[in-house]
């Protein structure tokens, strides 16, 4: 017994915390990558995540596209949508203050959410995830048998979300920190003019980076489609927390934002058990403390 609750309950809450952290990680990763290359705070990230969930629903409803194909196709479609936004709108703002990119992408959120609400209402759409993910497994937490409190219920779909997010995060980290393409990205984040003068097509790199960041949000949207009702505002609710996660972790480090995301998911879960009333604000309290003591974030580099 910890916090006066059975071990099985505690384990399940921590597990759900990790699964929330998985969403924070996928979304904060995209935000951090986009901010690094474009200097744009992509407020539309939540709306793009929501579009990912809607696209998954539409794909199944009208085209018969299965969940598995959606995992592949929806990020591609969202990525192309991102590329269009970057080429048409964002590229005019790079020399201006961050505020302009924030305002433009905020405007996009209002337009996208408005259109989706108009088309599908705001009550939420159900999505049938593959039968494979239905139900849950029971996991023995100790050697004792027969005692119901020593079993943890592991919802299969939530487990899949954690596994998929961890794989994608590691793959993204590897690409950015360990490959030639990643070294272009890191160098162009520091000094785009010089990287371009070496013969690298930096504007193309920027466009693809935005597309990739939006594709990550789209992938998170597909995962969310199988978990919750799909509503036009599902992204806005989540993205505010994700912004706080990014502020806490700092923009400087890919690994930092991944670790921060999962850690904060766990912190939320523990708060939910220890003092449920605070579970919705604990991340923002931590954000304030971090801003006061380390303004660049836990893993960020001081400017």
């Amino acid at each position: 017994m910890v916090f006066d609750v059975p071990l099985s309950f505690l384990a399940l809450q921590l597990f759900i915390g990790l699964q929330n952290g998985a969403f924070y990680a996928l979304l904060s990763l995209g935000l951090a990558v986009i901010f690094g290359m474009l200097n744009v705070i992509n407020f539309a990230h939540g709306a793009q995540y929501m579009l990912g969930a809607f696209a998954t629903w539409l794909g199944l409803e009208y085209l018969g596209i299965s969940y598995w194909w959606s995992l592949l196709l929806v990020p591609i479609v969202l990525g192309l949508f991102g590329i269009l936004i970057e080429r048409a709108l964002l590229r005019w703002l790079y020399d201006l203050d961050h505020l302009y990119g924030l305002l433009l992408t905020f405007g996009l959120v209002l337009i996208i959410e408005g259109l989706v609400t108009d088309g599908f209402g705001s009550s939420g759409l159900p999505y049938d995830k593959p039968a494979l993910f239905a139900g849950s497994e029971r996991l023995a937490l100790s050697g004792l048998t027969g005692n119901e409190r020593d079993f943890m219920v592991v919802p299969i779909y939530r487990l899949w979300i954690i596994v998929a997010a961890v794989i994608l995060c590691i793959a993204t980290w590897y690409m950015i920190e360990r490959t030639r393409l990643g070294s272009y990205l890191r160098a162009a984040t520091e000094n785009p003019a010089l990287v371009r003068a070496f013969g690298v097509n930096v504007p193309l790199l920027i466009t693809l980076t935005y597309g990739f960041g939006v594709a990550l949000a789209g992938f998170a949207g597909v995962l969310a489609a199988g978990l919750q009702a799909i509503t036009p505002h599902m992204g806005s609710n989540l993205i505010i927390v994700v912004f706080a996660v990014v502020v806490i972790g700092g923009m400087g480090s890919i690994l930092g934002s991944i670790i921060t995301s999962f850690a904060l998911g766990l912190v939320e879960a523990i708060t939910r058990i220890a003092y449920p009333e605070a579970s919705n604000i604990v991340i923002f309290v931590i954000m304030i403390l971090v801003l006061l003591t380390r303004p660049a974030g836990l893993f960020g580099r001081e400017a």
Partner: protein
Amino acid sequence: MPNSDIPIAAGSEAAMRASATVEPVIQVEGLQAYYGESHILHGVDLTVHEGELVTLLGRNGAGKTTTLKSIIGMVGQRAGSIRVLGQETVNLKSNRIARLGIAYCPEERGIFSSLSVEENLYLPPVIGEGGVSVEELFELFPNLKERRGTKQGTRLSGGEQQMLAIARILRTGAKVLLLDEPTEGLAPVIVQQIGNIIRKLKERGFTILLVEQNFRFAAGLAERNYVMEDGRIVDMVRHDELAAKEAQLQEFLGV
């Protein structure tokens, strides 16, 4: 000392004669350049022939760095004519200009702190054949071989960073090098090493346009020296005229 001048001067004349038939590697005519509202270059004319080592001398703010940055395309607003390896580049973006076979080493060295020494070395893409191999680079720059495992490029000393900044553009196969003050802020012994390296590069046939404040360093290496003032070329001094024009040069450069 006069003896050592003769072969270089002769080489320079050969290059001059060749210029009648072969187009210069860099030909700048009437170059105007602006940073926002400020007009920096007011009609720069200069020519660099294949295999030549030419310097741009002048005081701080004379427009030397802006001239190099204009040639590589890092200055947004430029007018006039810049021909690089036979192609007009005044309207090209810097990534296209670099691909013609020209590379730039910035004054602030531009070593990336989020890249390791090795990643910094491999960063500039190969743009042509015949680049210097990494093994040869480590022979030219033994310090870099020792420090190749360093996780952060900017952890190197100033001299090592300068060597890395030169080494990485030699790998790419670019035959024309724009070097902006490679000796700035370095200890005399390192300045000497860099001088030796530039001499070796010239022997290997690289065409080099070098910006320098260090007049003695530059004049000892170059075949011709352009003198800049207030965004214009005001004089061109061949190596064999240095002695005669020294007093005049000192006055221009304020040394």
